């Protein structure tokens, strides 16, 4: 199958190094302490954050830091008629864990001992790159909730098909069976908090793909900062200061 034409266009018309259109919106769930919607192309994810609040299950309470919990779900309608698994399946559990660990690395949990922070992410529409979209949405929602963080965490995927590194795979490219690297970074600290890869890649190629994913993450970070800045301006405006 030809995923990159000899003219250098991917199936959806992007060039190999281009991301899909991204869009983020803050404050979409009033009841939550923080919330956001994040879209990467046709992948659409909503995240809601509650906390820091009292620990529900006392036995889990930690005296030196906050407890971070994460629940990942996919809306039943998110994939159209594509294969769908019931809630609590292994894949969801795994992604919940990945998101929790990634976010936990940037939340300054020691500032909020004996509390818990709940992150709920739900995929509304899936078209590849759901993990990355979830992390980006969670970052926005955590910022919205005003939870202290070391840095933003942004995520983007990159893959390798037809001997070409490709940024931000969509569903069709994702299911092509090539390698798929999902990367999460803290852009200011220049640290990697998440790195997952399916399939195998020779080391030199992997480095190229990884570099591409880093560029993607940085681009997402720039955009997220803009969204946050815009949001802050709006707040200021509403307060009338």
């Amino acid at each position, binding site marked *: 199958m030809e995923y990159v034409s*000899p003219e250098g266009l991917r199936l959806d*018309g992007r060039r190999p190094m281009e991301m*899909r259109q991204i869009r983020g919106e803050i404050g979409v769930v009033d009841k939550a302490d923080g919330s956001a919607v994040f879209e990467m*192309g*046709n992948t659409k994810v909503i995240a809601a954050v509650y906390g820091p609040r009292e620990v529900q299950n006392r036995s889990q309470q930690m005296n030196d830091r906050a407890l971070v919990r994460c629940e990942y779900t996919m809306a039943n309608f998110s994939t159209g008629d594509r294969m769908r698994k019931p809630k609590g399946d292994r894949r969801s559990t795994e992604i919940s864990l990945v998101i929790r660990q990634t976010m936990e690395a940037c939340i300054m949990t020691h500032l909020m001992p004996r509390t818990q922070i709940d992150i709920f992410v739900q995929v509304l529409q899936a078209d590849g790159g759901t993990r990355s979209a979830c992390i980006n949405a969670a970052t926005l929602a955590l910022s919205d909730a005003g939870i202290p963080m070391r840095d933003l965490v942004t995520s983007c995927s990159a893959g390798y098909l037809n001997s070409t590194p490709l940024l931000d795979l969509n569903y069709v490219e994702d299911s092509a069976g090539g390698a798929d690297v999902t990367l999460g970074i803290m852009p200011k600290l220049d640290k990697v908090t998440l790195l997952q890869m399916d399939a195998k890649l020779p080391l030199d190629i992997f480095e190229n793909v990884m570099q591409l994913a880093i560029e993607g993450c940085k681009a997402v970070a720039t955009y997220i900062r803009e969204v946050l800045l815009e949001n802050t301006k709006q707040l200021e405006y509403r307060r009338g200061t």
Partner: protein
Amino acid sequence: MLQNKSFVKRTRGGKITKVVREHYLRHDIYCGAPVCKVCDTSGARLSPTASTILIFDTNVVLHQIDLIENPAIEDVVVLSIVLEEVKNRNLSVYNRVRALCSNSLRKFFVFSNEHHKDTYVTDMSGESKNDRNDRAIRVAAQWYQTHLAGSAKVLLITNDKENKRKAIEEGISAETVESYVRSLSKPELLDLLVQPASEDVKMEDAEDLRPSKRKVIYSEHKPMSEITSGLHRGIYHQGKLRVNRYNPFEAYVGSESIGDEIIIYGRTNMNRAFDGDIVAVELLPQDQWHEEKSLALADEEDEEEDVHLVPGSADDAPRTIAAQGSAGITEPVQNRPSGRVVGIIKRNWHSYCGSLEPMAKPAGGGGIAHALFVSKDRRIPKIRIQTRQLENLMDKRIIVAVDSWDRLSRYPSGHYVRTIGVIGDKDTETEVVLIENDINTRPFSSQVLACLPPLPWFVSSEDLANPIRQDLRQLRVFSVDPPGCKDIDDALHCTALPNGNYEVGVHIADVTNFVHSGTPLDDEASQRGTSVYLVERRIDMLPKPLTEDICSLRADVERLAFSVIWEMTAEAEIISARYTKSVIKSCAALSYIEAQARMDDSRLMDPLTTDLRNMNSLAKIMRARRIERGALTLASAEVKFEIDTETHDPLDMGMYQIREANQMVEEFMLAANVSVAEKILKHFPLCSLLRRHPSPTREMLEPLLRTAAAIGLNLDVSSSKALADSLDSAVGDDPYFNKLIRILATRCMTQAVYFCSGDLSPPEYLHYGLAASLYTHFTSPIRRYADVITHRLLAASLGIYKLPTIFQDGPRLTSIADNLNYRHRNAQMASRASVELHTVIFFKKRPTDTEARIVRIRSNGFFVFVPKYGIEGPVYLTPRGEKGSGEWYVDEQQQKIRKMDGSISYSVLQTVFIHMEIVEPQPNRPKLQLSLV
């Protein structure tokens, strides 16, 4: 700019789903014209002086690809929507268009109209997909027209009336293919045009000029829906049609649903199917199952029988003797299901090599003539073509492509593609052989050559220091090959050990040290599969620097090798075997003749000659043991030519003489292959590449048994051992008798094939001819890709390299093995064809009388084998066409043909004297004719 494309799609499970895909529209897609002031012209492909820019619609590309490939067609903009449609409809045409677009010598530019912001069209409600795409093509054409306003004319080429009308309405210049080609005033281009099927009926028939006689010849093909439901209900059977190479009126369809081959007799039942087509077949009522055969032969013309090389195996030989035209014989073919083709699921049409059928007077007027094209491949029916250059083509080898075949025509219609050269010319005919056998003779690409190590290449100190490589330069290694061999794959050594045993080494060129998995070089070699040896030319699998220099184990240079080293007793029992990468330095590259002469010359006592003698005595024991196990020593009739160095014409031809030295080398190569097969299979039971030779069935041996019975010889074919023994004891009064029987036995066997060990169960791994339970190819990696794979497996089993990932992909391995079998087979056929070609050239100036043996009786004569030249062919007692005129009758039981008055009779295996001469029954069609002296 973003568009969401949504469409509904039926999933594999049969559900209907709505699919939404993002579709980005861009500003950075350029027009490809170097004169453009607006666009980035760095990727421009069109010529700066182009006055007209052509845009083809999908159907024109699909049907007129032969025309488009002609260099007269330039400055073409290929729209991505057209490419997409072509790809969905015909992959091979798509690949050809893509090749044009990437060819830097051609001026073809791909315009991604579907992603350009101004040329993307959204679906309109009620519009069919075809209409939408036609509209997209017009929009793109219009865009070009405005975009390039003034600097070039844009011409849309379409044969669709509606599309053309709309285009002209919208102000786009549009023309049909034919009117465009006419405007170029190059009449020979018109021959390349495909004739639309609808005009077929109106066209005059080349073989029959009386229009009133046109009648329905073939039954209608069933519509696809009916075929699908018929396949579901088990009324029809699907399979690939294989036409018998020696009797084109007989074909076979391997059907999984009935677990057997369905035989299709006659062109009527084949119903316009070509060899290789995927067809749907309906079984005939059981009572028609064997009557069909005689019918089929009666109503079709008898195809010509040419003199050809003696078959090397059953794959080269006719499938059944009865099919050879002895219409009088009622062959008891029991319960072989026969059927007829009801529909064609997938066509395997491509272009074919051949020549026009000679005819008295050109038919048709106005410069356009109709002619019948006869393919060199006898499985292909004659093809009708129209041409404006008949006189010119009559004595040429040409390529013709098939376009259509309607029910009213006996023959399919096609069009001329190109001329190869004059019939009978050595270069032309050699090219025909290469094209026919799908042999890639293109020079290696720069990407492939980039994988070669820098020249001149030497064994480096790193190679010597490499712990996986053993330094064997101190050993007395030598090679024995045919004279003039430049690609030396293998070398040997044999050292006497103090304990009375011998250390024997087989050293094979370390090709995988240079050919790494997944590189362009490896892909190319894998595709080529094997080197091809023609009489005066070699087409290499690997580039020349590797083949003749870096890998070749030449004398007096250090080379890298992969070695198998045994310790053997003086009785040739293998005590231990080890495998290692090595560095060797061969001390002599001997020819078979030289090696033989050294061994025979009792005065020579030098160390090398002693090694040779020791090896030879070991080889003799190994050979005897192998034969004891039941290995068949089959005879083939290999011919060799002596070629004039100036004219390249054959000067002399004779049988290739097999010496003890050949057998000695062969024996050690066999042993190395067996050793390696055992080693790799032990480590990789599921992904080893092995070679097997299926036991012949009784049915396959039938011709041999019948001949044997006729001369009162009893052959036991119950096992390979029994057969080998009976062949040994088949000794007649004349010294050649045994060899003749062996030659007859050889042609009953099929060839050995490569396979992936995971695809079969161990009992099926058997190599019947060698009586080996396991076998592979390891010893010729320079010229066979199978050996390259085996080298990788062996290196991985020793733990010195990792197994490339491709070995984890079962289906991929199977397809590699299939390709190797295909390439191997084609290479052999090409070699045979090349020998046949040179045989004809040889006898052109040398009519010869010689001795021949009758191998088969026919109704009008017999087939003879000419031992001296390794050929066989028909000798006619009655003129062709008057078969069985009554003067002669055939005694089937005793395989004899007798004159009615009893004065003369000929029986099988009898010696006759024949005259061999080149005749030209029709101008430019030379053939070798055999007649009784």
